[in-house]
């Protein structure tokens, strides 16, 4: 199997509103795949479907070779950092890690070592017995990344992992992600709306807008296709320059459709 994720004609409707519209893409094993798009484009919805939290309205999805029906096996095979925090603030960092290890049936002998290794990796070992509510946003993010790795997942999903972090912390988090990808050969599926991040670490970039996949490929192929010099210029050409609210307007929908048709 060369692909960690393959998605065909994936669609998700929320009471008549189409958040994800017949997207297809594949993610190669071991690559860093950046899913780029403005607010409300459908990135989180796609991640929720890939991670079995939402049922698709149509299309087929395979994650690590399992179809979505194979819920427990898929779940055991990935780690995820959600867009919004998902730690228990009343527990310590270490307790959050142990909770996760037990939920994923990692034996005690294994997890004791793994947790130490990971907390040291994200530089939180000396704070392991502090309650999470005393952590800064960046520390929480790093802890969530460490937690998502305890059970040796084959894919790590990161939904806007750097949202709301300062430049230094963003950099640190990205370096961690790249290091894990190299060291453990782990596939990384990352959403972001920071173009520089995608530019910096992604092997493949896919751009989604209004639920429609408008482009995908390596950075150089995207630049070539759009005849632009920077990812930013290419991105703006593909997605337009209008400002987005979470709920997309129908006019914008129409424009995207037409852009896709023209290609």
């Amino acid at each position, binding site marked *: 199997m060369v692909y960690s994720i393959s998605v065909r004609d994936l669609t998700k409707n929320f009471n008549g509103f189409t958040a994800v519209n017949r997207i297809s893409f594949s993610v190669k094993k071991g690559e860093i795949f950046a899913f780029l798009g403005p607010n409300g484009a459908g990135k989180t919805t796609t991640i*929720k479907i890939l*991670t*079995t*939290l*939402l049922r698709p309205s149509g299309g087929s999805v395979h994650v690590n070779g399992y179809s979505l029906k194979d*819920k*427990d*096996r898929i*779940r*055991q095979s990935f780690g*995820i950092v*959600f867009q*919004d*925090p*998902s*730690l*228990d*603030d*009343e*527990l310590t960092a270490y*307790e959050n890690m*142990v*909770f*996760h290890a*037990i*939920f*994923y*049936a990692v034996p005690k002998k294994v997890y004791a070592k793994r947790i130490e290794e990971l907390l040291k990796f994200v530089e939180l070992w000396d704070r392991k017995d502090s309650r999470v509510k005393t952590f800064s946003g960046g520390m929480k993010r790093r802890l969530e990344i460490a937690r998502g790795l305890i059970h040796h997942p084959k894919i790590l999903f990161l939904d806007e992992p750097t949202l709301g972090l300062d430049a230094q912390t963003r950099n640190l988090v990205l370096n961690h992600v790249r290091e894990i990808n190299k060291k453990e050969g782990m596939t990384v599926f990352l959403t972001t709306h920071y173009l520089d991040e995608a530019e910096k670490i992604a092997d493949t970039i896919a751009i989604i807008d209004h639920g429609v996949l408008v482009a995908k490929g390596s950075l150089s192929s995207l630049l070539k296709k759009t005849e632009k010099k920077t990812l930013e210029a290419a991105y703006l050409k593909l997605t337009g320059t209008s400002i987005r609210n979470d709920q997309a307007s129908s006019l914008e929908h129409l424009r995207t459709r037409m852009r896709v048709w023209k290609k």
Partner: protein
Amino acid sequence: MIAQMYIMWLRQLKRYWRSKPRMIGALGQPVLFLVALGFGLGPVFQRAGEGDYVTFLAPGIIGMSILFTGMFTGIEVIWDRQFGFLKETLVAPVSRVQIMIGRTLGGATIAVGQGILVLLISLAIGFHVENWALLPLALLFMALIAVLFTAFGTAIASKLTDMHAFPLIINFLIMPIFFLSGALFPLRDLPQALSVIISFNPLAYGIDGLRAALTSSAEFSVVTSLAVMCSVTIVIVLLGSYLFSKIEV
């Protein structure tokens, strides 16, 4: 499978243990009821030839504290949704029924703990246990009340996304459940309509069973109380598991 339920249970206990104000706050109301009603209505009760009111009241107030604590721990589901931890549990390779049962047992353990504290306070202010050999039976009834109403609270919380709606709904339900349970007054010689309503309230059987175990006086037979409590508890746990498994995040 057991390990996952255990860690869920342990987490509930740790969270509770770390919020001392919650523990102490939860004791205030039962103690107030015990003292104010117990001593306030005691003389009237005595004159009516019903014996010692504190002895009658204590099992009811123990039941009340378990009811309140159990129902309100359901709100943890809503907190977990708000603070995001719910997603961490729902995306794991663990069945939702296990998560729900772990949660419920955690909340129920806390509720029984509160019940035991109220029992101790009752003893301190003059409550007499008739037969200590029946204590395990009393604990069983406390556990059943705890599981039933924790599961009920969790079931309701599974359907709600609004943190503010929960206390309103719970108070709306808790008050009739409590006042129409025989916690405060004997079930004998009541108006027909009231008797009928009370006979549909599971808490009435829980408290009556508790009273039977602690004071050797009861309205229903212990077997009836046990049978009713067990079956209602099973139904509510199943309902709660179903609603919890339908949560989307």
